[in-house]
């Protein structure tokens, strides 16, 4: 390639990058400008006294407190299902799987992680309706259904991160226990897992981030516009991303719209801090490249 055409291309790179950054800057400036002015305790708790709400002594109605609690509940619950399955499968891949099995499981894992989340939501919804009609009349789209569907969404991340973390241990450290006469299992628990723990933790945090922001799954499986704080797993709930979606399509006045922007800021800060912690953890482990989020 001629040198002059290379230079032209580089100029194009600068132009395109500038356009991209400028658009991003305007966009986030707009969200932050709108959102920060909406931020207040009233946005979260409305008229309910803060401590009474936090201790669940009084109900919040027009604030986003319920949505924050709902998101927290559904994500924690999803992690309760996803973590053991994901970790153990990751360990299987690393420790026991034959080469063929490895490539097959890796393939399935890749597919699972790239299935559109609305399809996962539809899967959760249709199973629920199916079970409701045929076996469990008391099962409705609810907290537990959302949590299970969300866990389907994040399991592949946890598997991948566990496997990568274990694979990433330098060979001479990884086998140290074996050479000292430990069994494979002892080596796993006393040498390999501790060595991989930070990277695994960062994988978990990324998975949490993915679960927090997902909207398509929860809108199919039980998130509603107003629910209060759910008192059982079979109840419907509110969630932050769904709240933002709901406001965008059904806001009735300026105040509600402002609430939407306020909620957007809260969700943004929440997701970014989760993500940031994950990145810092990754950096602490090594300067190894190859880190692809999502």
């Amino acid at each position, binding site marked *: 390639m001629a040198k002059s055409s290379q230079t032209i291309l580089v100029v194009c790179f600068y132009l*395109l990058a500038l356009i991209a950054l400028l658009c991003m800057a305007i966009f986030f400036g707009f969200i932050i400008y709108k959102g920060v002015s909406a931020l207040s305790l009233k946005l979260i708790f409305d008229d309910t006294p803060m401590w009474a709400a936090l201790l669940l002594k009084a109900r919040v109605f027009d604030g986003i407190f319920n949505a924050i609690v709902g998101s927290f509940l559904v994500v924690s619950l999803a992690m309760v299902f996803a973590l053991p*399955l994901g970790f153990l499968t990751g360990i299987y891949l690393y420790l026991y799987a034959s080469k063929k099995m490895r490539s097959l499981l890796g393939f*399935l894992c890749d597919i699972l992680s790239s299935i559109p989340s*609305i399809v996962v939501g539809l899967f959760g*919804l249709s199973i629920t309706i199916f079970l409701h009609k045929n076996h469990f009349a008391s099962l409705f789209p609810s907290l537990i259904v959302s949590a299970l569907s969300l866990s389907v969404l994040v399991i592949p991340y946890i598997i991948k991160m566990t496997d990568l973390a274990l694979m990433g241990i330098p060979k001479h450290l990884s086998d140290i226990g074996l050479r000292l006469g430990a069994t494979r299992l002892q080596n796993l628990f006393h040498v390999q897992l501790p060595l991989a723990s930070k990277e695994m933790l960062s994988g978990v945090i990324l998975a949490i981030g993915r679960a927090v922001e997902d*909207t398509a799954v929860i809108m199919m499986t039980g998130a509603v516009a107003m629910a209060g704080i759910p008192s059982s797993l079979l109840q419907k709930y509110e969630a932050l991303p769904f709240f933002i*979606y709901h406001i965008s399509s059904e806001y009735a006045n300026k105040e509600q719209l402002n609430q939407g922007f306020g909620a957007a800021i809260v969700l943004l800060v929440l997701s970014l801090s989760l993500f940031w912690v994950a990145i810092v953890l990754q950096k602490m482990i090594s300067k190894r490249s*190859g880190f692809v*989020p999502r």
Partner: protein
Amino acid sequence: MGTFFRLSVVASAGVTSSLVFAILAFLLYFASPLFQADLFFDFFTLRWDEKAHAYGLLPMILGTLYISLLATFLATLMSFSLASLIDSFLPQKISRLLESIIVLLCGVPTVLYAFGALFLIVPFINEYIASGKGLSIFSASFVLSFVVLPTMSVMFLNAFRSLPKAYKNAGLSLGASPQELFFCMVLPLVKVEMMGAVIFGFARAVGDTLIALMLAGNALHIPHSLLDSARTLTAHIALINANDYESIAFKAIFLSALLLFIFTCSVVLLVRLMQKRRNNG
């Protein structure tokens, strides 16, 4: 203890790997009433109108293709530029800062982009570019391109960096400039990785629901221009989900989901094959 652990490990692997099959089986089960020859091909016609019992999915398939192709195109241009600059052309300090920003942007929730754009870009287009075309293929693709941009940039960067350091050092010691090095050595050697990044971006664009649902207008016709409104398969699922569970319309969304599923599988397969061929060749 050992056997118990091993058992639970194998069992978990069994459960997680069967998830894919479970999803496929359920989609097939719910869509199965539609697999009758006289009915089946009706789904690949140009009109969806429940009142007239027309259930053509082609408008949605085309909508999905237009929106995600355009989004991938825009995102590729921007993220490729960003990644190249970071890799080879910017001073180290700036490039580090830019890289951190982009990595952090990967964590921004999708619903935020859709929400912000609804109150920023849509009114802007309505007011200054084309009145009433705010909800259109263009808005959706434009915003979607920013959703996939951070991740695609990181993938491009990883592609550029997948070359052994020694290659670069050799080039530099032969007197090549960073510019020559980038165009003449790096780019030709990481073609496959770059293709992977583009395909990945496309798959994410196809799988996204909220951007198209909130910004593309969801009209049920064959779009003719960038400023036309369109409906994607994912948005179609979200909208028709509201329907009668016994109706053909509701069953048809399982066909939409099945199409998305097949698409996903083929993309993953394609990327795998590309990697394999490269590794062998």
